[in-house]
């Protein structure tokens, strides 16, 4: 009888532990849940019974209809995806190259350069907004997604380099030495041996790079607020600004902004933790 072998203290402790975890999970999820269920209600339903699930009487998708008719959510998503993915790819490539050079080669100023590149972790890039705008203007890149990508790459590089440098210290010496003995070139060592090895850290870096970019309001506002270049956060912000009294539309647009990022997160959350626990961040 396996049951009799479970210690009673264990059983009661398990109950307490799960009660705590469930409570907090509820705290974390309920607000999101509330927004999403109310997005599917009529205006009256939203105000009369905010906590009820939509039923036959209160169900309505008028908010979504309005949002989709009055704004260009597909385009906003496309813009956000483009900017986010291009940025992540560039950050990963450039950061792993730099991290590799910093962790592998001894050259004068190595530590100084590493510190220099780490400043950006601690300093908000936003403090330099006006100069950034001037720069983007000089480059003729205003109102382009390219402008956003450049700034986001600069913003994402410091943390990515930091994480990847830590990670690369853990790559066994033997691997690269074996390769050098075989006469493999430095570039090839990096691209053929090192790059595939850092995969566990990639998810971590990607998520840490992605969250602030996807959610950023500031730079889209300053650098690319024009029609057709809005990112999803800016689009939602503008839309909500416009329809703030229309709760159907507000709730629907919030739901539309929330759901994709949560789905992405659900897909990648396992990799994220794996990356974290593989020692990419300490």
């Amino acid at each position: 009888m396996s049951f009799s072998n479970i210690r009673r203290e264990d059983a009661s402790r398990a109950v307490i532990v799960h009660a705590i975890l469930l409570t907090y999970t509820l705290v974390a999820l309920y607000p999101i849940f509330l927004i999403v269920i109310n997005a599917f209600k009529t205006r009256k339903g939203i105000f009369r019974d905010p906590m009820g699930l939509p039923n036959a009487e209160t169900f309505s998708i008028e908010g979504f209809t309005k949002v989709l008719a009055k704004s260009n959510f597909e385009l906003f998503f496309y813009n956000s995806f483009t900017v986010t993915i291009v940025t992540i790819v560039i950050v990963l490539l450039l950061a792993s190259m730099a991290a590799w050079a910093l962790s592998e080669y001894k050259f004068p100023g190595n530590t100084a350069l590493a510190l220099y590149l780490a400043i950006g972790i601690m300093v908000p890039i936003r403090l330099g907004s006006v100069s950034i705008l001037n720069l983007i203007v000089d480059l003729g890149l205003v109102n382009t997604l390219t402008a956003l990508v450049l700034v986001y790459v600069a913003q994402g590089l410091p943390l990515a380099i930091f994480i990847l440098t830590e990670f690369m210290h853990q790559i066994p010496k033997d691997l690269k030495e074996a390769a050098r003995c075989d006469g493999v070139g430095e570039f090839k060592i990096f691209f053929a041996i090192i790059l595939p090895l850092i995969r566990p850290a990639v998810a971590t870096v990607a998520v840490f790079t992605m969250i602030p970019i996807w959610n950023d309001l500031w730079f889209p506002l300053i650098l690319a607020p024009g029609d057709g270049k809005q990112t999803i956060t800016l689009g939602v912000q503008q839309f909500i600004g416009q329809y703030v009294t229309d709760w159907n539309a507000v709730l629907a647009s919030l739901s539309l902004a929330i759901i994709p990022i949560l789905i992405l997160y659900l897909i990648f959350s396992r990799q994220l933790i794996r990356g974290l626990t593989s020692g990419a961040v300490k």
Partner: protein
Amino acid sequence: MADLKLDQIRKRYGAVDVLHGIDLDVKDGEFVVFVGPSGCGKSTLLRIIAGLEEITGGELMIDGDVVNTKSPRDRGIAMVFQSYALYPHMTVYKNMAFGLKLDKQDKSAIDARVREAARILQLDQLLDRRPSELSGGQRQRVAIGRAIVRQPKVFLFDEPLSNLDAALRVQTRLEIAKLHQDLKSTIVYVTHDQVEAMTLADKIVVMNGGNVEQVGSPMQLYHHPETRFVAGFIGSPAMNFTNVRIDAVAPGKVTVSAPGGIKSVLPFEVPQSEVGKIVELGIRPEHLAPGDEETLSVNGEVDVVEKLGDSTYLYIKLANGDRVTVRAPGHSRIKIGDMVTASAPAGAAHLFDGDGKAFVKVDYPAEFSAEE
């Protein structure tokens, strides 16, 4: 100090049975070694005794009490881990005192016990060091010290020597043996190394695939393996095996043969029904010697020679393709490529049926018997 009794202990992870009902009696003060290949369940069994794993079925008794649902702290055990598991942020002293402190023992009593253990283990000078400042052997001793101060009823050792280099391993093995003599404590010790098992154990438990293959003293296992697995596992170099056919049986006698020369009459009690069947013949390398003076002989071509100084191992390829190891004297001149005949007394042979069970040997020459 206490007895330990395992009664039909079972362990299941999800749908996988890891232990299939283990029975075992450990007497007070006995040094028991669980030995077996990795994955055989020996570590799981040890963790069950420690209380780190829940028991799926059966009963575990320490000192007469059923402890199935007791937490480790209430079982009166102490454990030494393979990795030593020293707390990296504590000094040696604090590592050893940790359990006693949790037990809210008196400060001076803790101090006395820690210093006594440190004296025994010659750790006096290291008490203020952190584990990272210790050598592997010193860490090992701290891990043992941490167990000693708790004055447990039962000591549990989980492969404690496997992280040490060979020289240190021998030395520490001796220290553990000496410790056991001094403390007279009950010890359960897990290892995959049969040499450790042979040298340390009062009683060896050979495990395989979640089952106990055989329990016995080292010499019993050496001389009277009950299964082909035990025979192969105990002894170094490992026992030679080759297939033979049972040609005829008589009370207390069996005639076996194999293509390429083996044909012998061996002192086993084999049922008539086995005639004509293929069984396995086992002979330890140390019982074989070059020459054909003895009754049981094999021959073939030497394809490897290992010189160890006091002895030389010859690896002979038999006509049926099996390879047989023979221990020759250290001065042997036999070289690779030589055709060699080696022979052993009939009493040194082991015979196993198709299921790996040993046939009963009837004639025990004294040198092949565990009986004193």
